[in-house]
């Protein structure tokens, strides 16, 4: 048995390694586990970061490819935040039975989909619903979504960070001007605009600096606010009301901005986003014993939870799955009473879980990787990674990144404030997501893969800690031209 202790800090709430070993030995002694199976178990202790996530306290996955059912290697993952000390034995026993061919489901689940890649999961439909009906959610909770962020506010709005960003950009414009290369129109793109607060603050400071230094750059400025949610774009308008002549509001697919903005290819001098990559569809890959596996998921609701929600919202349990589909189609109006519809939405989201199975990647070359990545690049990066590893592919972030770079002017740069895993070894110290943040999904972004993609696209990628708020987990990704 291999026990991966992923956490790096003592936490009294997390089961101890001795408790894990004692539990599994006990299950071996009582015959729940076969000796051959026991020998090949890999246990990941405290592997999930977010308190609100999609997992059971203990989940068990079979590693496919073994003909002897009694010897099938198992992966046991223990969420330290949910698995209370003393409860481990029952939780593991519950997760182990009944054993199905490919997955070990618990009893009493209402499935909402078939197994699929996480990026195709219905979970992302909930995420989309959240952003398109944000106002409904916030009215029900009485809380702005930013209040749910660590620290209660977005690092994107930090005044000094914005002042420094404006200063750097002004310096670039001045340099271009000195080389007689300043474009007639100076394009800046903010992707994923949130409340528009950052855009408004950035424009205020840019105008002030331009006036102070009498450089007359501001009239040339074309500030593009891009978001896939029309509701979000509309809401951001108020925050930039003093600069509307400089602003354009553009509905664009965060995964493919060049498609909408192809007329600005090689023309944008600065692209910025914050907390957008962590909210783009993702999928996961695991390497175990030298083999590569896709991690597939299947969304479900625990039947007991579904029954409770159904009773509270006046929906028969037999109609829960159908009503969830309707919720994702039309929003809270899936129920006649709007407030009850919102309640249904929020409770279903809170109860939503994902079970998993591993599917062997038979041929890496023919695997459906995101467009930005090919098998050779993945091979390269895995050659320097720990041998047994589960990591995020960050498909959405990779695609967005790849499809943003062609917008950059030769002297342009991309800055992304987000939560990044910058080295694959970090996955040995906890798996960073996915979690639930209000009604949305939050997920760490695989910066190591982004770096690889960037290099092949002609950019060096750098990650700097966000220095403006002590304790912030945010990093700042920025690009420089690769020679």
């Amino acid at each position: 048995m291999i026990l991966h202790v992923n956490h790096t800090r003592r936490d009294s709430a997390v089961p101890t390694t001795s408790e894990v070993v004692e539990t599994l030995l006990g299950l071996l002694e009582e015959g729940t586990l076969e000796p051959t199976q026991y020998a090949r178990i890999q246990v990941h202790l405290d592997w999930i970061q977010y308190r609100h996530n999609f997992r059971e306290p203990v989940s068990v996955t079979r590693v496919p490819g073994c003909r002897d059912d009694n010897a099938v290697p198992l992966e046991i993952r223990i969420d330290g935040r949910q698995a209370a000390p003393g409860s481990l034995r029952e939780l593991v026993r519950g997760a182990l039975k009944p054993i199905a061919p490919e997955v070990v489901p618990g009893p009493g689940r209402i499935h909402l989909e078939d197994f699929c890649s996480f990026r195709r999961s219905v979970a992302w439909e909930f995420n989309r619903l959240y952003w398109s009906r944000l106002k409904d959610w916030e009215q029900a909770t009485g809380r702005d979504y930013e209040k749910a962020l660590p620290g209660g506010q977005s690092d994107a709005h930090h005044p000094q960070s914005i002042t420094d960003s404006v200063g750097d950009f002004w310096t670039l414009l001045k340099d271009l001007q000195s080389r007689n290369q300043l474009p007639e129109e100076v394009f800046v793109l903010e992707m994923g605009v949130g409340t528009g607060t950052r855009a408004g603050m950035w424009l205020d400071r840019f105008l002030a600096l331009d006036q102070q230094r009498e450089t007359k750059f501001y009239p040339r400025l074309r500030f593009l606010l891009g978001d896939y949610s029309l509701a979000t774009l509309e809401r951001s308008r108020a925050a930039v009301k003093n600069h509307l002549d400089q602003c354009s509001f553009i509905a664009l697919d965060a995964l493919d901005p060049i498609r909408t903005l192809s007329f600005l290819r090689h023309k944008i001098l600065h692209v910025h986003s914050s907390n957008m990559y962590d909210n783009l569809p993702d999928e996961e890959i695991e390497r175990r014993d030298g083999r590569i596996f896709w991690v597939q998921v299947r969304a479900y609701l625990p039947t007991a939870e579904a029954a409770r929600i159904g009773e509270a919202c006046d929906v028969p349990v037999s109609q829960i799955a159908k009503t969830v589909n309707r919720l994702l189609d039309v929003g809270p109006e899936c129920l006649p009473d709007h407030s009850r519809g919102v309640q249904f939405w929020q409770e279903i989201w809170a109860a939503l879980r994902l079970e998993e199975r591993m599917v062997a990647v038979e041929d890496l070359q023919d695997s459906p990787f995101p467009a930005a990545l090919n098998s050779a690049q993945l091979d390269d990066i895995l050659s320097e990674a720990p041998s047994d590893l589960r990591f995020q592919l960050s498909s959405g972030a990779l695609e967005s990144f790849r499809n943003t770079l062609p917008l950059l002017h030769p002297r342009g740069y991309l800055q992304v404030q987000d939560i990044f895993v910058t080295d694959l070894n970090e996955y040995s110290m906890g798996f960073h997501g996915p979690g639930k943040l209000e009604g949305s999904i939050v997920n760490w972004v695989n910066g190591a893969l982004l770096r690889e993609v960037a290099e092949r696209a002609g950019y060096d990628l750098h990650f700097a800690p966000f220095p403006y708020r002590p304790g912030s987990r945010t990093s700042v990704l920025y690009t420089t031209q690769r020679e």
Partner: protein
Amino acid sequence: MSLPILPTTVVGSYSMPGWLERLKTEYFARRISRHELDEIHDTVVKAAIKDQEIAGLDIVSDGELRRDNMIDYFVERLPGVQIDRSSKKFYYDFYDCEVVGKIPMAPLGLVNDFRFLRENTEREAKICITGPHSLTKRIRNKHYPSEEALATDIARVLNMEMKELVKAGARFIQIDEPYYSGFPEDFSWGVEVLNTLVEGVNATVAVHICYGNRYGKPSWAGNYRYLFPAILKAKVQQLSLEFARRGGEDLELFREFSVPFEVGVGVIDVKAEEVETPEIVAARIRKAAQFVPPERMIVLPDCGLFHLPRDVAFAKLRAMVQGARIVRKELGH
């Protein structure tokens, strides 16, 4: 072999397949031998030539598929340039290299590349050479008193190679100098270096100046005004520039200045995968013809096709040839 009006050609490189990239990297990882890589190169060069012929080009190249990139293929051959061979992970990366003494005169071996090209096509053949200014910008100078001095010595070595190419039958030689657009202040001495390079070379010599195409994206911004009037002193026969991606604003320069050479007009955007239609190409040629007489115009892409997928590169070349034919017909040819 006579060429039609508005002759069509490539700037040099042809599409580099992903599998060839991987094989080149395998070579750097010592997993395939030099001999195997040479065989692979011969095969892909033949395929690149064939594609250009099928597309209908009047002047073809070897696609530059033997080259890791436009710099390393030359610094590896330049005597006296010291290379840190551990300095690149991916074949396309640049070597770190430096010059610590005077560069001696020695052959670079490009004649073999040209002979292979010549043996495998009946069309007019063109070979491309990275110019001394661009090479100077990538070689750390630890010997010469100035970049100009280093570039001049590189020009002397390249000049000898160009004469050898002419002896081997080369009639069209192109010099690639994209770095001028990144360092326009160098162009004042760059023209003299250019003239050292082409002195006594009895061939049609073109100089290609674009805004960079490394990784399939522009490296620099600006406009071509920096070339004028200094470029008028260049003793070359053709000047090849990038117009498709950037629009035709700089064509005005050819109204402002009377240039003594033919002009290669870029009519294919090599930094976008959308394939131009023959009609778009024809329109670009017609626009250029308002500033450059058609009988002094060469039709080509903005730069090399290296970064484009093969099917896209081929379709673009085919559209370029068809577009040129449309205008030829309009001109009565």
